[in-house]
């Protein structure tokens, strides 16, 4: 039974990598938000798998809370923000598609090669959870640096947070409930505040292209 769960865990986590490339590469912000929704749903499924494998009942609460916040709330607010700002398609990113794919591939391969040696204990329990959480984090940072659109940068931040949460769940699944509530609240509040700021930027400055934000230099 346990072996099956571990296989399922690995399978679902691998799909997360595909969704993460989709989140970064899809130029249509709504589609990108839906890809994020899918990724968060898989993350919630991973949480419940961890709960089954470790029989830590409070991991089910993580599942529920991430279903409510990450699957329902955040994509909803993101799509609302795209409608509010009228920006469906993000501005052209810094790098062309092929180069961007190259970077992502390099990140994925190098982290899968390195990570198993860093946390051997977690690797045996939840296969490939550590490399995948690191991949999500690093691809998020890469997206943050290479995309110009403010809303896309918020999506990249959410994506990074998914990585951190997977890392937290697969290593520190015994951490107290208060910790999880605090971290999740902060993450959601940060996203809401960032989206509010993005809407304000569009309204006052008239652009979501963060590379054009150059009123303050030096």
């Amino acid at each position, binding site marked *: 039974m346990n072996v099956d769960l571990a296989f399922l865990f690995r399978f679902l986590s691998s799909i997360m990598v595909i969704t993460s490339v989709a989140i970064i590469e899809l130029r249509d912000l709504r589609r990108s938000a839906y890809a994020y929704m899918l990724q968060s749903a898989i993350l919630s499924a991973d949480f419940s798998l961890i709960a089954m494998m470790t029989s830590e009942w409070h991991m089910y609460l993580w599942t529920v809370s991430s279903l409510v916040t990450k699957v329902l709330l955040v994509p909803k607010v993101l799509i609302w923000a795209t409608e509010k700002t009228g920006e469906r398609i993000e501005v052209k990113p810094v790098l062309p598609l092929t180069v961007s794919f190259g970077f992502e591939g390099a990140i994925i391969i190098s982290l899968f090669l390195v990570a198993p040696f860093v946390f051997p204990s977690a690797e045996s329990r939840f296969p490939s959870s550590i490399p995948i959480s690191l991949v999500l984090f690093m691809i998020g940072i890469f997206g943050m640096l290479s995309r110009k659109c403010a809303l896309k940068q918020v999506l990249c931040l959410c994506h990074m947070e998914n990585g951190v949460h997977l890392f937290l769940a697969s290593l520190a699944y015994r951490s107290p409930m208060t*910790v999880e509530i605090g*971290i999740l*609240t*902060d993450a959601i509040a940060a996203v809401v*505040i*960032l989206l509010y*700021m993005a809407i304000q930027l569009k309204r006052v400055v008239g652009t979501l292209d963060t590379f054009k934000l150059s*009123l303050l230099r030096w």
Partner: protein
Amino acid sequence: MIPILILLSPLAGSLISLVLGRRPREICCILSSFISLVLSTTALISVRAEPESFLSGEVILDGLGALVAFLISLIVFLASVYSPYYMNLDEKKHRTYYFLLQLFDFTMLSVCISNNIFLIWVFVEATTLSSVFLVALRGDPTSLEAGWKYVLLCTVGLSIALFGTVMLYVNALEKIGESGILWTELMRNKSVLDGRVLETAVIFLIAGYGVKAGLFPFHWWLPDAYSEAPTPVSSVLSGVLINCSFLAIARFYLLSPSGIVSSLLMFFGIISAIFGSIAMIRQVNMKRLLAYSSVENMGIACIGLGAGGIGIMFSIFHVFNHGLLKSAAFLSWGGVERSNKMGGVPPSVAFSLVLSFILLGGCPPAGIFLSELGILTSVVRDVSVAVLYLISTFVSFSVLSYSAMEKGLGKMLAEKSSFSAWIIPVISSTISIAAGLYPIPILHIIEEFLGGVG
């Protein structure tokens, strides 16, 4: 129970001020920050070498926390007395401002007394979230841009810190058990922890909280946020927010105060100090100049931490003095800006400006001179570091005193100025002078803290 009471007063104040009218709201803010100032002063006086813990260890009161909490409540109190004089806001912004200022106070104080490593992270993140609308309060393009950069960069930085926190916790869970989530337990059992993982975790934590402290490669939110925020908010951001992050850095650094971690900290400290002082030269905007001075001073504090020994003691003393004088410099510059609009600078305001700027540069009677000297003695064996360190302090002193002369001693105005325009900066400068002339009590608290945690 004092630490919890310190927190309650600004939290209650922020909620109450939502329902009050304009004038009572200002008084409520002053009162709540005054109560937390009194309580944190008693906490600072009564602090002992052995940290006291409350709520089953989640909350502690130790020397470092009490010192920074005292600084926070002092500077927020001064800023809230100063705000009615400086701020001219419409009703909606007025309410937002006073609500968020006290909430910001609450989150910063929570960082000081948290013992749970995850809660430290949660509250540092909360300081960003509660202060972003204070930075972007004006709502015009530049302030929104500054707010955007601030919140985005700090959130990304803190997610790196969260990675470090998780690594640290997992390491502790294997070696110490459930109680490894508490910082005091980690300090007590740090020799049991797996050294390599501990070092990696601490590097992540320092990099993450370093973004919030304004260390070099990630400093660029800082001049924007400081120059765009209203002056009382800049004084709080520069005076104590970065000290909060410094407190987090110091706490985690003490877990692994040697080897590659201290070399890295020293390296980034030197780059920040040099870069900050050189960037100060070409600034025309005083608030940006002061922001780069913060980068420089945080660099100096990190050099002290990395050097170890008495360097750690003096770097804590340095951030204490820097907080006092930096907020004094911001508030006195606010006074000059306001008087310039009316035609000229009154002598009293000019005095407060020159005093705070020159002391901030490291002029002898102030505590900052003593701490810079102390850090110099701890790095003096390494000649190249000492030379770079001396260059950066020298450049920053020259730039600060030159700009004080240039801005302060311009066109004089004979008429009297508003009392709070100059007395508030002078108060915090005086406290720093007192700390410089008689540093024994504060150094004793820091020494006991360092001795107590091992």
